[in-house]
């Protein structure tokens, strides 16, 4: 039975991904904090697509709860998508380690905690796809968001290593690197419209990429080339830029 586990289901991207997979006939497990708030989405997707949709309580930062969370799933998923993340405030994080820690733990440590467990299970079952929503911000650290960027960089390296390990077991790992996306997370930011994706566009790209066993997905597509350029700027120039 086709089943997707979406971790961090309250985000805009997660909601769009959930909708896309429900459309394609998957059963869904939607995991988030305060999961009762997901009730309307659960009902909506069930009415529209007539598949099983469940809301589950999950806290990315409560590492100790992750093992039990995964064991308690009524049915193990065939696809697991890690969507939770936290942009945080760079300035605050520079002064206040608690904020920095929250950025690191939400974007990296929490993901490692749950994905280690899922990876082990998928490896044993010799099947499945794991997808992690990282970010172009992880491609290079820059002054305006390097706490977030470094956590995402760590996540990207983790997913890459995981991909390398799991290929022998027939398990695929997809690294998703969104550029600008119009969501709650970026609501306060002024994003350049032609470069900004909608959550639905991201969801479609993720769906297709998983279907085709891709390894790395940049969305919207032009960000691959934007980051190529960004990464190739020599450090002695980059350090003086105001990005």
């Amino acid at each position, binding site marked *: 039975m086709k089943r997707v586990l979406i971790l961090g289901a*309250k985000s805009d991207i997660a909601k769009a991904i959930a909708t896309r997979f429900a459309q394609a006939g998957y059963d869904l497990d939607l995991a988030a904090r*305060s999961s009762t*708030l997901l009730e*309307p*989405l659960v*009902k*909506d997707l069930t*009415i*529209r697509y007539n598949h099983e949709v469940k809301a589950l309580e999950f806290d990315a930062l409560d590492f100790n709860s992750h093992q039990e969370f995964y064991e308690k799933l009524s049915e193990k998923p065939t696809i697991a998508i890690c969507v939770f993340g936290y942009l945080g405030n760079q300035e605050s994080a520079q002064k206040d380690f608690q904020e920095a820690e929250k950025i690191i733990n939400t974007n990296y440590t929490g993901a490692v905690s749950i994905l280690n467990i899922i990876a082990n299970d998928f490896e044993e079952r010799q099947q499945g796809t794991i997808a992690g929503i990282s970010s172009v911000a992880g491609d290079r650290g820059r002054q305006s968001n390097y706490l977030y960027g470094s956590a995402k960089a760590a996540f990207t390296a983790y997913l890459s290593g995981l991909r390398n390990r799991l290929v022998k077991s027939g398990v695929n790992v997809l690294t998703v690197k969104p550029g600008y996306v119009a969501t*709650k997370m970026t*609501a*306060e930011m002024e994003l350049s419209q032609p470069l900004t994706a909608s959550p639905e566009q991201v969801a479609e790209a993720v769906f297709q990429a998983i279907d085709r066993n891709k390894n790395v997905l940049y969305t919207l597509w032009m960000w691959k080339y934007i980051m190529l350029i960004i990464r190739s700027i020599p450090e002695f120039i980059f350090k003086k830029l105001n990005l």
Partner: protein
Amino acid sequence: MKKFKEIKNWGNYPRLHARFTELEFINEIAAFIDRQNNVTIRGNGRAYGDASLGNNIFSTLKLDKFLELDENRGVITCQAGVLFTDILKLIVPKGLFLPVTPGTQFITVGGAIAADVHGKNHHSEGCFSRHLISLTLIGDRGNLIPCSRAENPDLFWATVGGMGLTGLIYSAEFYLKRIETAYIRQETIKARNLTEAMDLFESSQDWTYTVAWLDCLSRGEKQGRSLMLRGEHATLEELPHSLQKQPLNLPDKRKINIPFTLPNFVLNGLSVQAFNTLYYHKQWQKQSVDIIDYDSYFYPLDGIENWNRIYGDRGFVQYQFVLPKAESKAGLAKILTQISASKKGSFLTVLKLFGEADPDACLSFPMEGYTLALDFKLQPGLFEFLNELDKIVLDCGGRLYLVKDARMKSETLNYYPHLAQFKAQINRKFTSHLADRIGL
């Protein structure tokens, strides 16, 4: 999401700069509402004037989830930001339809309730509120208030047609109707003047759907010449063979888009007159029958995205009134005479015959009589002209439709007999530019 933006409704007039917030989860919404001093609730912005405009707007568009669908009973429950178009996409393939729908499907359920919308079937099936079972309101402390005919009935009847001034409609439960096919059997009949049009309405009372497009610029014997379009949901046998295999599924239609606002001179007295004449004569025969899909029958303008741009960047004003039946013939004749004399033409003029008003719905617009809806391009002298029309409407004992209004004076409100009852239920936190302007 909180931002500042320029906001306008469908008439592109007026425009305001507003703080704009859109939230999805009930806990955040309740907390947000509790924190505000004043807030204006907004759906999809298809009111014509300033009904859902204010300085601090809360948009319900993220409340877009279906909560329950009972196909056997024909009952649906959904959040208030669900659009009619999304409901139709879900229910038509299941052989169900909206009980009442206005001329656009791009309104929210909350908006449909707040304006107590009517369609081409008011004489047979009433307003949207007739089919509304219950709703959940969010009050000024972010508290949830269930409302129905049995529970908090005063608040229920004030919220229906209440223009968003009693609270934030969070969700609603209402009846659907059964259909055999997604098509309408439509009869188009030419009426040479207003008298013929009104006679046709009288003789069409047994039809579920009736509406007439009217040429408001024709004069003399031809005054009020119209095309009456009456319709019934087509049964399976009535469909041509080619459609009978997929009676409930419509192919996607290509939409036309008006990509930019037309210069102001394009729509003027002469061009409107020309359009009206051509449109009236588009049908050679006196009477013809067609099978057309529900989208084309109910939502002819939705096929032209951004049709409001035809009116230029100043925008336009919609004027919709209803006259009691006894006064309608004389009243309409007077009004049409004024309009054709003024050369301020409306090319989208719609005439309907309403059935009886719902006695409980405080601010609901329809009353038994004829209603005419006109579009006027914004131009110098328009507001004075409309004030003159107001006098005729009020002399006849009629009234204006708030969700279309951008300029009426507060006195016109007094012709709603249950105004005091409505005012007793207004929640002062929930305001709008319309409410401030007309003193609600």
